[in-house]
């Protein structure tokens, strides 16, 4: 592969130089910068500008109740630290993101391995396991709010299997509900991970698997030593998108628990939504800045990976 790419680069270098020289003679680049202007105008106004403001307004008194915005120093940070909101919201968000990243990948990988062969049943099953990805996360949240009620369908089925009544309030525990909500999130997105893993499995050469089997490798050995190493890019892609996507999560938590019980599932975006709704804009944007900084810190290893992937693609 590398040899091929190198050959191509060598061959195209003189041709590219010739074309560029021709373009210069005619007074313009073949790849002019004005092609990025529309994208960067939109990015600048709707993405970069708000992000810059996000470094300013946390230090002000901006709210629905003050007519004039004044400088407030670190007051907003002090208040979210003092009442413990900052650390609890951070802890909950990171827990949520980590549990989802693990479960969504585990479910996606298991489904992909289960449905790897191209049988009719497997094709149909893949389509159905993708259904939760299509519906809105809000809808998924409401479905599980109903399923997981103390007298809901899940407990009824569980009671039937166990032979006695079950009335666990799955969404009522200040310790475990965050894990239950993570499970719902993983259920909603496992179909997407499954597809990415299936694509990864398709890229595993069949003759390598066959050779390993002829050499007497068990199913587990084939998976562990042949397929899994080749799935590494899919794992990284899935884990990174799940982790960073969930840091930004809102809908499923809002629809299942709305942050409760006793704010034990209040992730950063729920806090931002709630405080913004009550007019405390500066506090909301303070948490938004915290979210930004946490994601940037977490993203460093991810960026390193994306750079690597890009090189592979190029």
């Amino acid at each position, binding site marked *: 592969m590398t040899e091929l790419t190198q050959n*191509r680069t060598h061959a*195209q270098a003189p041709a590219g130089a*010739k074309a560029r020289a*021709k*373009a210069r003679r005619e007074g*313009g680049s*073949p*790849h*002019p*910068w004005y*092609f*990025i202007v*529309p*994208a*960067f105008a*939109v*990015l600048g*106004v709707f*993405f970069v500008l*708000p992000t810059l403001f*996000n470094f300013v*307004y946390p230090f002000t008194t901006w709210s629905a109740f003050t007519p004039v915005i004044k400088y407030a120093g670190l007051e907003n940070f002090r208040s979210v630290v003092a009442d413990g909101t900052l650390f609890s919201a951070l802890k909950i968000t990171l827990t949520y993101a980590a549990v989802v990243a693990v479960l969504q990948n585990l479910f996606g990988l298991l489904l992909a391995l289960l449905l790897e062969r191209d049988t009719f*049943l*497997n094709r149909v099953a*893949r*389509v*159905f396991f*993708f*259904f939760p990805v*299509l*519906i*809105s*996360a809000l*809808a998924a949240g*409401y*479905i599980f709010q109903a*399923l997981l*009620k103390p007298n*809901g*369908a899940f407990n009824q*089925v569980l009671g039937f299997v166990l032979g006695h009544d079950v009335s666990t309030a799955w969404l009522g525990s200040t310790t475990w509900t965050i894990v239950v909500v993570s499970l719902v999130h993983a259920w909603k997105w496992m179909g*997407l991970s499954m*597809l*990415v893993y*299936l*694509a990864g499995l398709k890229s595993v050469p069949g003759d390598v698997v066959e050779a390993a089997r002829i050499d007497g490798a068990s199913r587990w050995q084939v998976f562990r030593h042949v397929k899994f190493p080749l799935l590494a890019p*899919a794992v990284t892609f899935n884990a990174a998108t799940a982790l960073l996507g969930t840091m*930004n999560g809102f*809908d499923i938590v*809002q629809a299942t628990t709305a942050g409760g019980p006793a704010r034990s599932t209040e992730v950063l*975006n729920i806090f931002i939504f709630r405080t*913004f709704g009550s007019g405390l804009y500066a506090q*909301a*944007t303070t948490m*938004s800045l915290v979210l*930004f900084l946490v*994601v940037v810190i977490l*993203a460093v290893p991810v*960026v390193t990976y994306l750079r690597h992937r890009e090189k592979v*693609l190029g």
Partner: protein
Amino acid sequence: MTITTSPRRAPRLLQPTVVVALLVMVIGAPFWLVLATASKTQGEALNPNLALPTHWRLWGNIAQASDKGEIGRALLGSAVVVIPAVIGVLVFGSMAAWIFGRRNGRGTAVLYGIGISGVLVPPAVVTVVLVLRQLHLAGTQVGMIGVYMGMYLSTVIFFITGFVRTIPIELEEAARVDGAGPARVFFRIILPLLGPVIATCTILITLFAWNDVFYAFFALGGGKNTTMPLNLFKVASTALYTNAWNLIFSYVILTSLPLVLLFSVAQRKIISGITSGAVK
């Protein structure tokens, strides 16, 4: 011989059994709950369960929910925002990606870094409202389109830049020798070749934007413009007080229908579109 065939035959029966069992429990049960509850009377739906409705009144509930949730206005509101945003990010994003895929150097790297920063970094959702207000776009569909475009451009630029690099530059040079300018080269040669990666981006961004409610709260919040997820939230928030689960799930069916129908029609293309673009 029997020793080698028996472990092979067992999985042949085992695998389909496991698949069907999982489908029934993991997908079937939740979706049956939605359909069964949406078909019940309000009295029966107070405690949603998997039991069959005694009287099927799905159409009545759907009609009532679509009336309460103004489904027509919501569907139109979603379409007016999502379709231009998706087309916009694809056109602007692929234009920028073409330049990034072809140019080298430090300046290009810096601009590319800014261009793809949104793949990882979350949008500043509170101060975006401030910007929208200053531009007199708060609560408008144009503002919502701008916010979605700003959020998803990075993803498009990232995916397409990688793809552009795999297109041989000789194709462009041939056209250029024939006297084609950059616009002609891009729209006639490059854009048609981007098909597979554009398909992947279209599917993913439509999924995200169509189902988004968080950013819509901030950009459209409280105004006269709405989307399907915003109306689902509104319907559910009032119906939850009275435990009118039949109405909530009727509206869930209504909001899920457009994408589910689209997916059923183009299921093969969508699955191969996602898998071909996501992992190379």
